[in-house]
């Protein structure tokens, strides 16, 4: 055979046989160089996940020396991942963690080199997976499948993930290394480490998440075993749990408060809130002032607002897996040492800025103080409270009686979500209070504390500045303008047509 053809045939054969799981073998020596340059910061020189960045990361970086991986598609009793599983983690990264996707910086070949090197850490060089996840025939999503999945979920999953899927904690979970873990909040698909496509959810249900308390539901020894079809139903149900109102729309930076008649809602359950437009913002941990906080449990807050002639009401809604009640034995068991109250805060400038200059977003500055409305959920035997502070910079707080400014707040915890209403008159007698004004863009920022996650004082999550707008009613001007334009144009048309008709008649005569 002509050597040219032989090479071509070999290439075609290789392409035909190439399975995503069995790709070109990488060069571990080249991989080591890439690893040293890109990965040691978190995963460490030894591959043990003890890099200089490790202690502030939650979840912690993977320890490659253990030789097993959480997100794989090989059989539940195997421990060797598919090459494609490793490739996916490196190329796409792990959403909700500090692991970025490297596909834009490293070439395909470089990533294979890296994979070859990672295997050396765990002694996986010669290992081949013996078993694969059996996907059977995928059940397409449908109302019926979702309903079946819901029933199965209630039976098999809600002990950890909660009936709402938000991971309401009834017990303390930990990984094999003893570190605290939280069940996934299944309503937030962007935090799924390996996507929320039904097929990926199916993989998680089938394999479990090795090293954590998420078990395999394909294991015949499990009392909770699910058939392939059942697992597809659960996957379709979990996929359907995504909550649209919790998705951040980056272009939306304004909380628009609509004007209502007949009184403002004082409770989070008031049906009037359905009239208010939700705005969701990302929460990030406070990592810029002492004491810094690096391990948050939540990442978004949803805000609605309404106002009337006399007051403004703000509804704050955020997911929290735990109702943190200091003094309550159940809550203390789940939280561990150092349980504090859950809390939320709204920050507003003491004076609505005239120009661009706002107060410093981190609790104001000496020349530009802010008001902070701080609600706390209360201890086990106590009641919720709201406090009012003037702040002039991080930690520079002065409290005033909230009652004198008419500030009120009340919260409800249900199925993994806190909902708190704060209400304050538009204007107050106190000179250091913000005086609200219809139609003016008012800076506003938020903070939240999960008391079961070690959050207290400066350890909390927060947003940067957004806007609150008391939206003036539209009024009749757009209607009047439309009417005027229509009359003008219709008049001009009639005038033109009549003129033309008259000229025609004149021409005929």
């Amino acid at each position: 055979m002509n050597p040219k053809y032989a090479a071509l045939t070999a290439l075609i054969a290789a392409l035909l046989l190439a399975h995503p799981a069995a790709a070109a073998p990488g060069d571990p020596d080249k991989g080591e160089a890439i690893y040293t340059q890109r990965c040691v910061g978190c995963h460490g020189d030894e591959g043990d996940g003890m890099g200089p960045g490790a202690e502030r990361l939650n979840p912690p970086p993977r320890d490659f020396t253990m030789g097993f991986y959480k997100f794989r598609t090989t059989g539940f009793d195997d421990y060797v991942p598919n090459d494609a599983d490793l490739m996916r983690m490196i190329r796409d990264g792990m959403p909700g963690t500090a692991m970025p996707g490297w596909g834009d910086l490293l070439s395909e070949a470089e990533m294979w080199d890296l994979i070859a090197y990672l295997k050396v850490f765990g002694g996986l060089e010669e290992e081949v997976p013996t078993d694969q996840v059996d996907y059977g025939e995928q059940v397409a999503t449908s109302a019926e499948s979702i309903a079946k999945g819901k029933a199965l979920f209630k039976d098999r999953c809600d002990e950890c993930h909660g009936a709402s899927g938000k991971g309401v904690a009834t017990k303390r979970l930990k990984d094999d290394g003893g570190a605290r873990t939280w069940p996934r909040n299944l309503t937030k698909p962007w935090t799924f480490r390996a996507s929320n496509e039904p097929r990926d959810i199916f993989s998680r249900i089938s394999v479990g998440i090795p090293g954590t308390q998420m078990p395999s539901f394909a294991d015949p020894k499990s009392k909770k075993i699910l058939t392939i079809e059942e697992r597809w139903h659960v996957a379709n149900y979990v996929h359907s749990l995504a909550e649209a109102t919790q998705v951040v729309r980056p272009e939306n930076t304004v909380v628009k408060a609509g004007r209502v008649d007949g009184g403002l809602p004082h409770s989070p359950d008031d049906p009037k809130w359905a009239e208010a437009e939700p705005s969701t913002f990302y929460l990030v941990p406070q990592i810029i002032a002492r004491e810094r906080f690096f391990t948050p449990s939540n990442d978004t807050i949803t805000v609605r607002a309404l106002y009337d002639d006399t007051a403004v009401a703000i509804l704050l809604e955020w997911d929290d897996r735990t109702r943190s009640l200091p003094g309550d034995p159940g809550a203390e068991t789940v939280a561990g040492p150092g349980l504090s109250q859950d809390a939320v805060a709204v920050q507003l400038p003491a004076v609505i800025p005239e120009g661009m200059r706002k107060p410093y977003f981190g609790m104001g500055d000496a020349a530009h103080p802010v008001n902070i409305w701080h609600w706390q959920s209360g201890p086990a035997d106590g009641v919720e409270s709201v406090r009012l502070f003037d702040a002039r910079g991080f930690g520079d707080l002065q409290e005033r009686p909230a009652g004198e400014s008419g500030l009120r707040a009340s919260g409800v915890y249900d199925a993994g979500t806190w909902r708190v209403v704060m209400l304050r008159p538009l204007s107050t007698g106190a000179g250091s209070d913000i005086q609200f004004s219809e139609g003016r863009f008012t800076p506003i920022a938020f903070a939240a504390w999960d008391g079961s996650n070690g959050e207290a004082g400066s350890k909390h999550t927060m947003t940067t500045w957004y806007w609150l707008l008391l939206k003036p009613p539209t009024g009749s001007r757009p209607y009047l303008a439309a009417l005027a334009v229509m009359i003008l144009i219709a008049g001009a048309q009639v005038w033109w047509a009549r003129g033309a008709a008259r000229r025609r008649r004149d021409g005929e005569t």
Partner: protein
Amino acid sequence: MRRIPKIPRLLQAVLVVVFFHAGFVLVFDYLLAQVIPASLLTMYMFFVVVGVFMVFTFTEDSAREMVAPIKALVEDPSKRRTRNVVFAIVPLIAGGFAYNHMLPRFEAPLELRSIHPAPPSSVKIGDKRYNLLTLENPFRETETQDPERFAELVAEGAAIYIANCQYCHGDKLDGKGPYARALNPTPLNFQDIGTIAQLQESFLFWRIATGGPGLPDEGAPWLSSMPVWSDFLSEDEIWKVILFLYDYTGHRPRAWEQG
């Protein structure tokens, strides 16, 4: 030879205008993927329409040919039914535009800020005053004089970076760390040729040491979530991080102009 049927002149004009509009959308929205203010598109289309109108009505004949279909619609009795339909629709469309235009918009005020504002000539950090016009990275010379020491310093800078900076600026130094999406203004992308490659090391030292609150007013210090790193890092640690930023990205710090 068969002649291609002639497109009526009015339709030609409309097609040309549509072509220009589609071209604008294609180039800016799809090819360049740039956010273009609606007002700019409006202005561009205004000139397009005026230009097309001028070209298409350049001679008296061409003008007459162009308005002929409209004239016929209004004046030709046989087109009466079509005319009535058009006369009903046009005011409705115009009214709809007017209504939409008069609706209050509630778009957030634009916040203009200078991303790399001019540094002061000197800056006081703690008890020490630094002259930013002469300040240089004390470790830079090891790059040529002691490459082994330089590599150590870069590695130390990398460790400091990963424990402190990656949350916002990212593992890849691309400004896309896990918390970046929550911040406004967004963290700088050091890989980008428009950031550290355009700046001197003394500028980086100033920006890192004094953080957001150290910005002059044109940099909107009240918005930036860059911490005041002199509260957390020593002077040497900051210089090591700067070595790392240039080493990892492959950029060179901007040098002082000679002469």
